């Protein structure tokens, strides 16, 4: 059995919308092993992004615990969470979320500003990350000058440049055509297989989830191992 990297325990998350209380996650348990590539599926509004955000320390559970590499994430305060995310989490977003005023190179260097690396080391690390995603020739381009697939590859380079403990991807191919999406999935698979990256990927697309080592389904606040009918 793999070493458990992510341990979600009896997680409850509800939102208040006016007088109404929306229960999104109810007593949810999830374990992800180190080096695993997990796909998280489920209908729209089932709480996939909510769960991903809770694992990544972007939000607090209503109750329950989240541990990542032994760290009790729900115990950290705002300040500590920011530092923890910088150190341990790489996010990949559906709409890439690149800074439009920065070149690909500078976008990838961004998380390194939070480290002790020198400017030269930052440049070298970012160049290496861009090489991994196959964008060596486009380092000085701005997001608006790149295709969606290329922008997402910059997004992945930014996520891996700090060598994080965990990659969290929220519908990384959701905005891409089939061909570009496949290239992104190839990349994620390679990162998992060759570099041992632990990846949790939210997706709607069975074609994407097929690339993962394991698939779980979120339905009515609970996780299922089989696709619900």
């Amino acid at each position, binding site marked *: 059995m793999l070493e458990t990297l992510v341990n979600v325990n009896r997680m409850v998350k509800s939102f208040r919308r006016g007088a109404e209380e929306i229960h999104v996650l109810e007593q949810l348990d999830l374990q992800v092993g180190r080096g695993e590539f997990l796909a998280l599926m489920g209908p729209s509004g089932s709480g996939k992004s909510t769960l991903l955000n809770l694992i990544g320390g972007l939000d607090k559970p209503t109750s329950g615990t989240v541990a990542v590499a032994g760290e009790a994430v729900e115990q950290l305060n705002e300040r500590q969470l*920011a530092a923890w995310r910088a150190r341990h989490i790489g996010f990949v977003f559906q709409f890439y*979320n690149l800074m439009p*005023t920065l070149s690909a190179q500078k976008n990838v260097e961004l*998380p390194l500003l939070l480290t002790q690396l020198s400017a030269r080391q930052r440049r070298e690390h970012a160049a290496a990350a861009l090489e991994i995603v196959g964008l060596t020739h486009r380092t000085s381009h701005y997001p608006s000058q790149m295709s969606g697939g290329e922008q997402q590859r910059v997004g992945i380079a930014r996520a891996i440049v700090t060598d994080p403990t965990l990659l969290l991807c929220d519908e990384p191919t959701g905005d891409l055509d089939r061909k570009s999406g496949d290239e992104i999935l190839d990349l994620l698979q390679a990162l998992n297989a060759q570099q041992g990256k632990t990846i949790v990927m939210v997706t709607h697309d069975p074609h994407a989830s097929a690339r993962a080592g394991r698939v779980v389904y979120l339905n009515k606040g609970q996780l299922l191992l089989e696709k619900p009918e």
Partner: protein
Amino acid sequence: MNLLLNWLGQIWSVTGFGLRTIPQRKGASVAAIFGIAGVVAVLVGVLSIAQGFRYAMTASGSPDTVIVMRKGSDTEMMSGLTREDVTLVSLKPGLRRSGGVPAASAELFVVINLPKRGTGTDANVPLRGVGPETFEVRPQIHLTAGRKFEPGKNEILVGRAAAREFAGLDLNAAVRVGTADWKVVGIFSDEGGISESEIWTDARILQSAFRRGETYQSVYARLDGPGSFEVFKDALTSDPQLQVDAIRQSDYYSRQSQMTYNLVNGFGSLISVLMGIGALFGALNTMYNAVATRTREIATLRALGFQSGPVIVSILAESMCLALTGGLIGGVGAYLAFNGFEATTLNYQSFSQVAFAFAVTPSLLMQGVLYALLIGFVGGLFPALRAARLPIASALREQ
């Protein structure tokens, strides 16, 4: 130490993104800049009136020169001195003497009406009768044209500002006052001081023309040194035959200018506060807008691990950059538009016109820029706090 550098590095880069996105929000940013520029221009402009007025009123006020008036008189208008008073005053110790003659000028003045050059409407001008020693008493007075008046003749000297403001006060022109014609024989300057708004003639002629008998209103005298003021004043007040008091000319003028100065300053400050509130809303709006359009960007930075402190500081910095730009534009604009602009106003103590030039001083410009920065700070603070409090997860959902 490293922590601090790291924090400063975060501020630096986050501020950089903010400033780089200004071109995308050009309209609102430019509006905020010009709103603040307008406030600063008005603030500096109005306060430069007060500065210029005070400068005109105090420029010629030498601490060596004293004014002697009847005890209890605040202004020359209220004072009255006899010929005997004048003689006694000029014999007191502490006055400068050349060849035994004390530097003292017995004076009186009347207010006459003359049409203004621009509008043709009548306004008050002081017509001052001065003694032969007046140029000894006020060494800074220089003739810029013509000659001095001859004693005993209906001849007048016109101050530079009065010549500029009032119709008919040209060299060699005849001016009708009452029933007689007076000839302008010279124009004088007073280094921008208040005398430039006056007309001068021989005191004896003025006494007979306006049926003042042998009375005067004041004695202007020059001390033999700034330290002699107390000696002279004590000699005056301890003389039982005299009911007079002495005041330094500089103190007298600054006292006279105080009311108008306060009035204009108060008015200027009031307008600036009101306009400042308007500009503040402009700045708030711009920065709320900046935060709103950058919500996802800010949330992304926070997700990557940037702290909320640098986000707050960067938005404040952006707002204050806009404000500083506006403040500088407003200050320079006010300087170009107002500095040296010549105007006249009523001196409430003599009920006559004082000419002065708006003075945009470095300290006024400083005040204007500081005011702009204050508007920028407050205008950025609330949007910055909102940005810092954005829940990251829901902010990331925004498109």
